[in-house]
């Protein structure tokens, strides 16, 4: 059985990873006893490759969850390889298929092992794979008789991007907060603080315009969820996210109810939505 989660033919994906132009910058075997060492190695390489601290943490949890899946639900051990291209870090986590023969034989009738395929890794909401999909820019997962292989990529932010800025504009019956740059731990805290201040006024009507957003990490995602939580808790307050990037939309949907956010294509359309009853 082969499963693929982003539509690219699996064979092509496998070739993409293995035909990367450079040798891997990290190639490490792991089992249950070496997950800490694996996390430490990934953190070191992520930082050295230029991932921002928040994104490096995201990469560490993503690799850990995939490796833990290989240990718990796969062969009990596996291998991590990390490549660096000009634009991204690509990580491949593989397990070796069937559990150890001794372990696989336990409780199985004679010959049953032949018919057994690698157990699929769990992908339920709120579980490890779900979080991986929230934080990685791309996730591919394949399960087959030869084991399970997961590939995740983390885009390296181009240097010289615009710094974070939060511009406030008062429009008729609403306030537009325009976010520029990267939404991370620090800027996310500034955003939640700014929204909290807006909510001091009665029946606040807010538009969060994200058309100039250049990137985000898990803390940035959490900040958007927190902002919506603040608005929901304030009496008669409303918030519309304008120009929400499709990738960010996908990541937010992994974190809870789909109808948590009201979205619009742009600030003008958002303003129309706010004027609707």
């Amino acid at each position: 059985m082969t499963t693929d989660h982003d539509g690219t033919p699996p064979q092509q994906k496998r070739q993409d990873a293995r035909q990367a132009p450079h040798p891997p910058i990290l190639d490490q075997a792991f089992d249950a006893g070496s997950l800490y060492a694996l996390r430490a190695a990934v953190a070191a390489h992520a930082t050295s490759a230029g991932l921002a601290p928040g994104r490096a943490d995201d990469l560490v949890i993503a690799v850990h969850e995939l490796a833990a899946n290989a240990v718990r639900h796969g062969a009990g051990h596996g291998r991590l390889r990390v490549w660096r291209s000009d634009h991204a870090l690509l990580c491949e986590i593989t397990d070796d298929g069937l559990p150890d023969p001794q372990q696989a034989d336990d409780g199985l009738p004679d010959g049953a092992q032949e018919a057994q395929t690698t157990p699929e890794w769990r992908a339920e909401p709120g579980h490890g794979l779900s979080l991986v999909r929230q934080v990685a820019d791309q996730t591919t997962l394949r399960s087959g008789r030869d084991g399970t292989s997961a590939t995740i990529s983390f885009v390296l932010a181009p240097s010289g991007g615009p710094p974070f800025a939060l511009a406030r504009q008062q429009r008729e019956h609403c306030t537009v907060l325009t976010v520029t740059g990267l939404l991370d731990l620090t800027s996310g805290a500034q955003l939640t603080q700014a929204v909290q201040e807006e909510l001091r006024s009665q029946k606040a009507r807010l538009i969060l315009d994200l058309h100039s957003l250049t990137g985000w990490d898990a803390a940035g995602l959490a900040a958007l969820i927190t902002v919506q939580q603040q608005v929901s808790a304030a009496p008669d307050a409303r918030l519309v996210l304008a120009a929400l990037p499709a990738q960010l939309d996908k990541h937010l949907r992994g974190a809870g109810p789909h109808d948590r956010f009201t979205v619009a294509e742009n600030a003008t359309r958002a303003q129309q939505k706010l004027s609707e009853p």
Partner: protein
Amino acid sequence: MTISADTQITELTVNDHACLTFGEPEELFDLTAAFVRDGLDGGLKVVWLSDATPDRATAELARRGIAVEEALASGQLVAASYDGRLLDGQVFSAGHAMTWLEREMQRAGNQGLRLAVDMSWALGPVTGVEHLPEFEEQVAAALAGTATSVLCQYDRERFDPVTLASVAAFHTRSVAAATYHADVMLRICRQYAPAGIRLAGELDYQACDSLALALTEAIRLEGDVTVNAVPLAFIDVTCARMILDAARGLDAARGLEAARGLDAARGLDTGRGQPEARRMILRCRPGLAARFVLLGAADIPALRVVTVDDH
């Protein structure tokens, strides 16, 4: 998984001469705060001698929810240095120290006295430190039939096993934090003030049995549950979900209690009053707080996430 067989700090009573061992300052402050809190709640006079300045000592107690200002103002609580009490400059004499203790016991009178002494003074260049076992023996004798309890606090990393063994015999009880997991990577122990658990290091699914036990025991107590994860550098999804599920359990329990309360309001006596809204207070660094939010923390009414930046 390890669970210490020592007495819990919350189980101490009058007359106890207890030997507390701790592994780090955070643990010392936590256990002392519980000792002080229970003493103040019981109306006893409470004295804590330590090598921290009185301001630092009382600030650490205040940080753990003790109403120190009122207690200091009324004289019920005293936080002080050793000098003029246990020590005279850099000189220790068992007789001198006992004179001070007996005077304190007299002053407290019927009110009763709780005395906590951080014994780290004995690690310094103090003349007469060899009389420490003699002092501990005299304390044990002096407490019989009185309303005074004494908690001697020893850093188990810094005191040598021989010294610890030589003084242990004079104590009525041995006290330590309940520990659910302790190795080089991770420590899971009970926190006493405010009540809950403390997580330090790197926590992944391999320690989930220890975490489950710690959470189960913390929830079994009454009141809010604090999960102090400030010293935690990493948590994986399995363990984060376990903490969130425990918080959801507090919500569910509240729902059940509310239903019983409704029955009572309708005249169906269930023997219970209005439900008490229990909360889980999760304290952690901002990066970990974001992970909990992505896993659904914002949708759990009983959970309050407090981010702590200045660890």
